[in-house]
């Protein structure tokens, strides 16, 4: 296969990668956006709007708006379900090899009806995935890894039932190469593993969910219920899960904001619901931290203590035990749902990517920037960083870092020619 030239290759199609691509396009560069998952938008495409009687400035809606811009931008080549397998550089250029999962669903035929999703016997293995954002086409993706075909799915229901005959289960992986003058690493983060705090029983206690799961539920407009179907009337939020502990010796910087905004949102729509937030310290939030905190105190009961553990009660609720701040007495409180405000952990692929691109990682596992002042540059000329790949930050901060990285690339390419 011949290798088309794209001056800039961006790895990672989350808000940081998308913003960098859009910005580069506006500065007159062609960019290729490589996304490992089948869909663009990254984590933030799963978040809900947190507006109460007014916008809470969480930035989540910017992602949906930018996604549409991305799909309409003529100078950005999109490569979903693709990942880097090899990188090489010679006389100032990068030669990058990629591997793509097949388009089992033919995008020109698919009508996004979702019958493949409904018919698949292997949904729990993630055989058919659905994009969070409806701007994506196709909205569905058949992942050969989860598909039972490899284990002889005799039904092949999807292929037979697809009204548009868009599915061909025999398509295979492909490989290709791109040349680039510069690379932006924007491969993001993974939500902290809630199992790093085993005493909260995530996975074992079904009433315990993560902030990420709550965001998604609210985005889909689902009602908040306990696993037994009872309405959830008492909500507990535990902050700093996967942050500021021995395994994660840093502040994730976004969880206070999203945790409190979610709690406020739920209280706004359901004033009868109780919300308690357990925290160590509240970080300053938004353009008016004092105002935000005052409003949060109105809506949410803030407790400066971390529950020692959670226990299931026979009635189907959870019991949290903690030391009361003012009386210093151990108290128990019942909750229908407990939300763990999981933090930002380094991306899974960081070590591999660092090796391929000759980059270093910080002790925490994020990509090491040039120094504490230049957070978009790396020690490798031509390789730049954007977004949470470099360290925890909010959507808005990802956007500004991406804008900065795009301009650095612009200047770098100008100096090359």
């Amino acid at each position: 296969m011949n290798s088309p030239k794209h001056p800039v290759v961006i790895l990672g199609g989350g808000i940081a990668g998308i913003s960098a691509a859009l910005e580069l396009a506006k500065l007159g560069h062609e960019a290729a956006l490589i996304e490992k998952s089948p869909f663009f938008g990254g984590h933030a495409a799963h978040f809900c709007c947190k507006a109460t009687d007014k916008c809470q400035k969480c930035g989540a809606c910017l992602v949906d708006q930018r996604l549409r811009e991305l799909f309409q931008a003529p100078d950005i080549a999109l490569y979903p379900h693709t990942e880097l397998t090899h990188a090489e550089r010679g006389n100032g250029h990068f030669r990058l090899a990629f591997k793509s999962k097949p388009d089992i669903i033919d995008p020109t035929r698919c009508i996004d009806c979702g019958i493949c999703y409904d018919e698949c016997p292997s949904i729990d293995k993630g055989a058919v995935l659905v994009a969070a954002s409806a701007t994506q086409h196709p909205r569905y993706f058949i992942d050969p890894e989860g598909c039972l075909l490899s284990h002889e799915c005799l039904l092949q229901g999807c292929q037979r039932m697809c009204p548009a005959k868009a599915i061909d289960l025999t398509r295979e992986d492909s490989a290709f190469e791109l040349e680039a003058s510069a690379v932006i690493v924007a491969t993001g983060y993974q939500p902290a593993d809630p199992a790093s705090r085993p005493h909260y029983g995530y996975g074992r206690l079904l009433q315990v969910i993560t902030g990420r799961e709550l965001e998604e539920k609210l985005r889909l407009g689902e009602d908040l219920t306990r696993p037994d179907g009872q309405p959830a009337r008492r909500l507990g939020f535990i902050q700093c899960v996967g942050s500021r502990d021995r395994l994660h010796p840093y502040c994730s910087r976004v969880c206070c904001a999203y945790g409190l905004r979610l709690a406020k949102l739920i209280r706004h729509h359901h004033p009868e619901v109780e919300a308690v937030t357990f925290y160590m310290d509240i970080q300053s939030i938004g353009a008016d931290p004092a105002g935000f905190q005052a409003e949060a105190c109105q809506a949410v009961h803030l407790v400066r203590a971390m529950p020692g553990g959670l226990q299931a009660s026979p009635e189907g609720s959870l019991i949290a035990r903690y030391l009361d701040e003012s009386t210093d007495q151990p108290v128990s409180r019942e909750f229908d749902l407990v939300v763990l405000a999981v933090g930002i952990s380094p991306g899974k692929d960081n070590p591999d990517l660092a090796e391929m691109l000759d980059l270093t990682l910080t002790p925490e596992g994020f990509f090491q920037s040039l120094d504490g002042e230049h957070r978009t540059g790396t020690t490798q000329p031509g390789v730049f960083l954007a977004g949470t790949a470099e360290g925890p930050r909010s959507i808005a901060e990802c956007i500004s870092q991406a804008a900065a990285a795009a301009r650095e690339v612009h200047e770098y390419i100008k100096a090359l020619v």
Partner: protein
Amino acid sequence: MSILRPLEIIIAHGPELAAAGLDPHEFALAVGGFPKTRILLLDPALPEEEQQDRLRRFLGKGHRRPVVIASTDPESRAAATLRILRRTFQCNPERLSVVDLQPALEQRDKKSRRLKGLELIRLAAAHVTRAFPIHPEEVPVSTRVLVWGDSFAALKAAQELAASGYPVTLAGPKPELHPLDPEVPHLPVSAGLAALVGEVLSTDNIRVLTEVSLLAVEGAAGNFTVRLELAREVLEETAGAVILAPELEIDSHHQAFGLPAHPRLISLTEVERLLEKGEPTSFAPEEGGTVALLAGFSPESSPPGLRRVLAAAAQLLKQANLQVYLFLGQARVAAPGLEAALEAAQENGLIVFKLPDMPEIAPADGGTGLTVSFVEPVLRRPVKLSVEAAGLEEIYCAAAANAALAKVLEIPLNPRGFLQGDNVHLTPVATWRRGIYSAGPGRGVMGLDQALMDVEAAVAEVQKLLGQGAAHVPQGRAVVDRGLCVLCLTCYRVCPHRAITYDNRARIEEIACQGCGTCASECPQEAIQIRNYTDDQVTALFESFDPQLSPRIVAFLCRNSAWEAYQAALKLKHADIPPGLTAIKMPCAGKIDVDYLLRAVVYGSKAVMVLACHPDNCKSRHGNEFARWRVEQVQTYLAEVGLDPQRVLFKSLAANAPQDFLDAVAEMEARLGAMSGAPPKAAVR
């Protein structure tokens, strides 16, 4: 069919359209019933050369007729076709209407699918055949940039702009350039910052003006007229853009906590001064004595402030061999490495008490030192601690002069006095006035790393705006009828982007206008029209409705939020959108006139919905508020003539909230049901 004028219609489809229940050939035949139109069925999956050929044959040479292209998911499915139309055939975006057939495919039966599809095309045709092509034109602009302030961000911006060939005027009120790094001790001034000052002063392309006040910034981006008052003269110059980065101010906020004035209770800067002079003992005279540091008790406490406190603590521990206590309210550790630094400090001997409130501090009885009284947080007993001295964290705030500056610039301040409105659409460095950017300490408290990203982003904005001295400006999005304008200046007051100036009539500054239409809807003389959202065009839409589709609901959707939510909702499986719902995409809710709402009713709408962005989320600042007021107004009009005001519904929602869109539709249907006395439809979900 008086609404139709000559046009070309392309139906781009592969096998999917038939699969989704709309037979393309039958559909094309039905569309062919429109007068004065020609139709092409084209498979967007064909090789590009082939598509180009077919399009050439279809459109002919010198064609100048508007084009409607209909498809499902046109922007992705027909991406190649659209590229050819836009690039090879140079179709003007205003004369090329892209129709997504999805709302038709949603319909339950074949007939409604066809009717809905036809209505979608008719609406697009009515609009596009009345559209004016809008052409961007190159207009000359000044490449000079005014950078305001002497912060690190200001100096860096000046430096980067100069290096990219933009002459800079760097001006500010202070007598000399004195940038600050909020994360490091302020004394001594760091070598890096001192060197930066030197570099800036010796760069040819940067003119540095000190002790200046900004008198006015008039006109619009590209050619602002800037008036600066210097010591002896008033300087007037033209600048293409402005970057605001005035330095932060420091406040030791003693008063906020009612702390006593005491020589041993000092601010962190004073602590640093003593350490710098090598005189920590004058802070705490006794070798091995104890000192207290206080941080995190103000809502304004920030990570940079905490970092400085930790640096001071480390020096006190090391240099002076003192016992150091840190009384900490909220540990503001949301910055790289700060949590680890706090941990490390404790390992190195810093003793930390985390308290809910500021401890009580009083002069020690009969001594020179102080007593700190607090409830010890672990054992919960009251403790009185004697310390030789105490140092209070400083907080950073916006420059006090920002208020005056904002007035001159006619931009709103955020709640903390920074020079950027509090709206996510301004992310990262925009202000409500195009060509004026706010970076680093101009828009918030941040370390140099974040400030540097702001600088890059702001300089990129300048590059995109001014180019090499010519800006691409779409011409005539909003037009003033000079015969009608009476110079009441309503438009000037309501324009969120400050795009209106005036000579003897109101004038639209094309470079700043975003086409939101707030002015046009508010003008009492109806002297302003938004091209391609003129009253005639909107009326033509109403005339295109198909009476067979019912119940007739007209939904005016802001394209930034509600339109996105609607598009997403169409793809949701449980979406149940009534066939008679017609969505009209508006450039901003600010353009939804009272007149449109009333006319929608006159043209037979049972219900009218106005869906806009949430308060504080409008891309044009307050278009959504205008829309809400207008709905209230229309509701009173309806009530006056004996119609049910509940027929008009206003709701705010976000682009990522398709469920909110469906809920709004369900609410509208419920209201309609209640009005007609029919039993309410079972809740859909």
